[in-house]
């Protein structure tokens, strides 16, 4: 009798699965005794006389998401859950039918939406402001980018070629795009100084983009005749083959300046070490944070992570670009503000809570849960 009372407290609810495109109903059980061994979910719809097995409910979360392909939006479905106990089976029917709907907005993504709006607004506003007042824009010194002229210059003095080594990712990678901007600057200097350049590529698409970039840079420098497509070479689409190829070129050609730009993997160290051993000035840049230590230790200048992504703004100094950098900076300020507020709220809340007032702590936990 006692057992019966215990079991009869189980309730089952069926409801539309939130934040989805429809076609799914969530079934949740409440007050389930821990002794349950198994729980099977059965479904029927209007017109059906018997329930059919839908699936197995998790006996830890007591939830089952029924996304069977037969479920139609707007139609009621009735559920029964059979709970298996060591000595008995209890069937519980959901107190109301579940109806699936499609949602127009995914509430679980609100935090992303807010950030997206804040961040894009900041970037767009600062781009507009920059267009109006191009004078008031500032960007801090990035030594690695300032050193481009010096490196190419020294290489010219020594009568040695300049190398530009692309990373291993394709053109959709932000780092590769930044590398192309840097290549343009390097190629322009090379054209001005009339010194040879060699660009090595891992990816054929990046290679075609590099060819165009170098060609344009030579034209900008007023020396389109000096451009030679053969200087932009495709090596191979294989990590260690590429490394061996670049290494061999470095040892043979003994460049005076080497640019290692883009996303690198384990080969970063081999390239930087060989480059150092031939006595070149090395300027590296990558967004691969695992490889940054090796570049920092073995190269003369390094563009660290986001510094590289800001390169196009730094080199071009176009108001629109600088505006977007400024917008991103305000985004950082915004994030730091949130972290700061979070820390203050958390600390004060914790102190107040130990003094008996948990209200602020609740606010804090809500904020944490928001992310």
């Amino acid at each position, binding site marked *: 009798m006692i057992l019966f009372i215990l079991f009869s407290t189980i309730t089952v609810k069926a409801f539309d699965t939130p934040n989805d495109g429809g076609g799914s109903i969530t079934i949740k059980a409440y007050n389930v005794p821990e002794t349950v061994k198994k729980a099977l979910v059965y479904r029927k719809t209007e017109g059906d006389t018997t329930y059919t097995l839908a699936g197995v409910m*998790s006996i*830890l*979360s007591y939830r089952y998401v029924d996304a069977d392909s037969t479920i139609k939006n707007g139609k009621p479905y009735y559920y029964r859950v059979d709970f298996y106990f060591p000595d008995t089976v209890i069937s519980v029917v959901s107190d109301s039918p579940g109806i699936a709907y499609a949602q127009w907005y995914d509430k679980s993504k609100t935090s992303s939406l807010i950030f997206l709006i804040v961040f894009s607004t900041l970037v767009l506003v600062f781009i507009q402001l920059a267009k109006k007042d191009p004078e008031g824009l500032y960007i801090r010194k990035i030594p690695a980018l300032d050193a481009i002229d010096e490196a190419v210059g020294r290489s010219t003095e020594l009568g040695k070629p300049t190398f530009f080594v692309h990373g291993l990712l394709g053109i959709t990678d932000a780092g590769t795009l930044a590398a192309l901007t840097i290549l343009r600057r390097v190629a322009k200097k090379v054209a001005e100084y009339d010194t040879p350049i060699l660009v090595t590529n891992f990816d054929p698409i990046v290679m075609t983009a590099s060819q165009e970039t170098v060609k344009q840079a030579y034209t900008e420098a007023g020396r389109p005749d000096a451009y030679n497509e053969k200087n932009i070479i495709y090596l191979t689409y294989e990590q260690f083959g590429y490394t061996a190829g670049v290494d061999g070129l470095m040892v043979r050609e003994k460049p005076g300046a080497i640019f290692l730009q883009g996303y690198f993997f384990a080969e970063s160290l081999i390239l930087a070490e060989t480059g150092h051993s031939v006595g070149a000035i090395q300027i590296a840049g990558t967004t691969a944070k*695992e490889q940054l230590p090796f570049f920092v230790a073995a190269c003369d200048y390094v563009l660290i992570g986001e510094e590289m992504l800001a390169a196009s703004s730094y080199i071009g100094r176009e108001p629109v670009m600088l505006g977007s950098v400024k917008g991103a900076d305000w985004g950082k300020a915004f994030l730091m503000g949130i972290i700061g507020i979070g820390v203050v709220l958390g600390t004060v809340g914790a102190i107040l809570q130990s003094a008996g007032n948990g209200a602020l702590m609740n606010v804090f936990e809500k904020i944490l849960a928001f992310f």
Partner: protein
Amino acid sequence: MGFWDRFLKIDRRWVFLVVWIAVVIPLLKPLGLPTHITPPVKKLYDYIDRMEGEDKAVFLSFDFDPSTMPELLPMGVAIIRHCFAKKIPIIVYGGLYPQFVGMAKMAIDMAKTDFPDIVYGKDYVFLGYVPGLSLVILSIGESIQGTFGNDYFGNRLDTLPLTMHVDNYEKIGIVVDLSGSSIPASWVAYAYQRYGCRIGCGTTAVSAAQYYPYLQTGQFVGMLGGLKGAAEYEELLERNGIPTGRRTATIGMDAQSVVHLLIILLIILGNIGYFYVRRRERRA
């Protein structure tokens, strides 16, 4: 040209040779350096150890390929040996990607040798690859039989005593994931956060750094990091009288110590030479 100038210009092949010697000699003649046990390893060991006699199984997932094998395979072997010795039922899973299953097979073969009385199907089960990645982790929460159907050898899971009894996370005391990638985080996100199953992790030296926060927050019961973590686990087995077989990781750790010292020495010597030459050039 002074000594340091010549030293800095030394052919790098000499360095390669020294490294070679520094690896080979400790392997041939182990130094027997003591292994110091760190808390994350001890916690994982103790957790598994306490499962002895309990009605739960260890679920060991091999989520790595040969590129990280020297670090992670000894961990797998040590954990399987631990379970075999204590008769803790263990499900060995060949991993979320098809390339990984060979690693699990190798570990079982290496661990089995000292335990003749272990019975397949009762003491351990070997699960192969099924497609689905994180969905596999989720659906183990519902039913292992439903997810896999058969074991690696093609036996139906509902005919094996172990998997007849252990069908989802409820009967799994701990999932130990061996991986040098982000896969342990998926086990935390799906098996721990959705189903409350405890997670342990064995990872490479490189990835260990990124997983420390998981230890801090208790999302991992314990963690083995790199060859050192594996060597510590071997040491714990040894101390508790469990046959360890060939202690691959421990033997390797001696060589590791020597090469680390060598590299530190090279950094120091290189920098002394660098400063010496630089100072002389400044004076000149």
